[in-house]
């Protein structure tokens, strides 16, 4: 298990390549990547992410450990950035590896649902209409109820 919280960009290709590489006990690897969006109704020039140093790492570790308790996972990776980012830049990734695809998919979705609502990150968008904090979505809160 590896949890990384950093301001600098991460190398998604290299992380994906290295995650669980060459292990014959892991038949299924899932990655999810979150990317800064700017489109249609929302034109974003910069997204800034604030976080709670100390609590962030602890919360992500706890969420990853909970995933490892619920599913049989060979490895788990969570990387999340903070600070300013531009549209198209990768904000974060999770990766899960398991013997079977059901475990890998479910664990990755669980990580994302919990990370969205339980890890102390806050997004602020700067766009044509000024600056605003991104509101939490009802559907993200509702997503927790399925686990």
């Amino acid at each position, binding site marked *: 298990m590896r949890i990384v919280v950093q301001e600098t960009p991460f190398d998604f290709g290299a992380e994906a390549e290295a995650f669980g590489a060459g292990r014959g006990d892991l038949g299924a690897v899932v990655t999810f990547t979150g990317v800064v969006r700017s489109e249609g109704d929302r034109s974003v020039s910069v997204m800034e*992410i604030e976080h*709670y140093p*100390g*609590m962030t790492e602890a919360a992500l570790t706890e969420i990853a450990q909970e995933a490892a308790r619920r599913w049989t996972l060979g490895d788990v990776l969570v990387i999340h950035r903070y600070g300013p980012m531009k549209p198209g830049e990768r904000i974060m990734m999770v990766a899960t590896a398991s013997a079977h695809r059901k475990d890998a998919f479910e664990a990755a979705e669980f990580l*994302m649902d919990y990370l*969205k609502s*339980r890890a*102390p990150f*806050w997004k602020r968008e700067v766009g044509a209409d000024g600056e605003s904090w991104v509101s*939490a979505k009802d559907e993200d809160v509702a997503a927790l109820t399925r686990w």
Partner: protein
Amino acid sequence: MNVLYFAWVRERIGIPREDVVTDAATVNDLVEELRAREERYALAFADVSALRVAVDQKLADFDAPLEGVREVAFFPPMTGG
């Protein structure tokens, strides 16, 4: 006790953290004390249903006890990912 503010709570109150001397028994009691201080606190804590709280860096309820606690943080619902 260290009290921390994040995102728009930090912006409304105007500072990211402060040392608060308090006998508040619960988070709710602490919120009442802060609200009574100044307009900017009253504004930030106007609707606690729009807020979340962490006690010693763990998500908590507003009726959580504060005995022995070193750090309390207030912030809006998280929006990571």
